[in-house]
């Protein structure tokens, strides 16, 4: 039986909260965070350390979910496309603790919108626990978010909040598949 893989990418600028998000989820969900070896890694070693966050969750014998966090630094921009290839959906995490931080996300968000125009995604406005946090309408305005894309508040250190955002993204992916495939 072939194993099906759902690939979810966690994108967002450096410092937005991607690592925290995956870490919080792995406290409540059975997520393995070791990266399986790729072809290029020496034999005899089962896992390796890489520059992106990674999580793997087995749902059924024939179904796994993979989470890939992309490195936020600009100098990795070409890697974003490689890591994102074949993804079913992505979560775009931004640091929403100030307007300046939100603006920092614009270039990377445009990159994802331009390279993956029809991929289901959600924007998570992280660090909403910070008193100066920017509200959702302002974020939509700064990032010029299309009206059909959800912007959700997130506190990545909070389990309930992280789970809620992950499930919402999965729901987006599910409705996208319902619209675009013959299944139902």
């Amino acid at each position, binding site marked *: 039986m*072939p*194993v*099906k*893989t*759902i*690939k979810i990418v966690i994108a967002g600028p450096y410092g937005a909260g991607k690592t925290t998000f995956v870490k919080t989820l792995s406290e*409540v*969900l*059975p997520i393995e965070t070791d*990266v*399986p070896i*790729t*072809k*290029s890694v020496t034999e005899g070693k089962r896992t390796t350390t*890489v*520059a*992106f966050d*990674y999580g793997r*969750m087995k*749902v*059924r014998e024939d*179904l796994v*979910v*993979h989470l*890939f966090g992309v*490195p936020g630094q*600009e*100098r990795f*921009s*070409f*890697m*974003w*496309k*490689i*890591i994102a*290839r*074949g993804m*079913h959906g992505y979560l775009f995490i931004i640091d929403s603790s100030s307007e300046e931080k939100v603006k920092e996300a614009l*270039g*990377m968000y*445009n*990159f994802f919108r*331009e*390279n993956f125009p029809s991929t289901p995604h959600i924007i998570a406005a992280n660090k909403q626990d910070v008193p100066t946090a920017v509200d959702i309408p302002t974020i939509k305005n700064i990032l010029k978010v299309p009206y059909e894309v959800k912007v959700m508040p997130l506190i990545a250190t909070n*389990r*309930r909040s992280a*789970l*809620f955002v*992950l*499930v919402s993204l*999965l*729901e987006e*992916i*599910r409705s996208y*598949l*319902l619209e675009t*495939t013959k*299944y*139902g």
Partner: protein
Amino acid sequence: MNSDIQRIINEVRSSAEEIISESPDQIRAVYVMDREGTVITYVTNTVLINAGSTFFATPRFISSLKGLVSALPIGGINYVLMQGIDGIIQLMSIRDAGYIMIIINSEASIGLTRIILEKYTDRLYDLLRKLLSVSEEEVVEVINVEITPKDVEDVINFIKSKAIM
């Protein structure tokens, strides 16, 4: 992360730096892009430009250029010149592998910088071909089996069963 990819990107970056150093008083920025317009690397000449206005991808720009060119009887894009108020953009194709784009100061240096660009296309072509073939290989896993809405529903139910929300 795949170290071959990193190494090739670093080599592309060194070439871009070398291009600036060929004419540091004229070339303000160098961008190397793949054939879809994704920026692989960019180098700005900090003496002539502040690095604030960077971008990562121009797929819409590249596809409209391709659209324009295919509507006109002039074949593929190998060279585009655009004049702005504060500078001039030169875009040159790296054969079928990608594009190199530079921003220069003045009209007077167009001829010289074009020669510089041509000098680097062979090297960049080799690097881009290598980058393409390395990145075609799986990064971690190749996804090919089709996912159904039911699969995603199973994931959602699984998460809900593991964590009381």
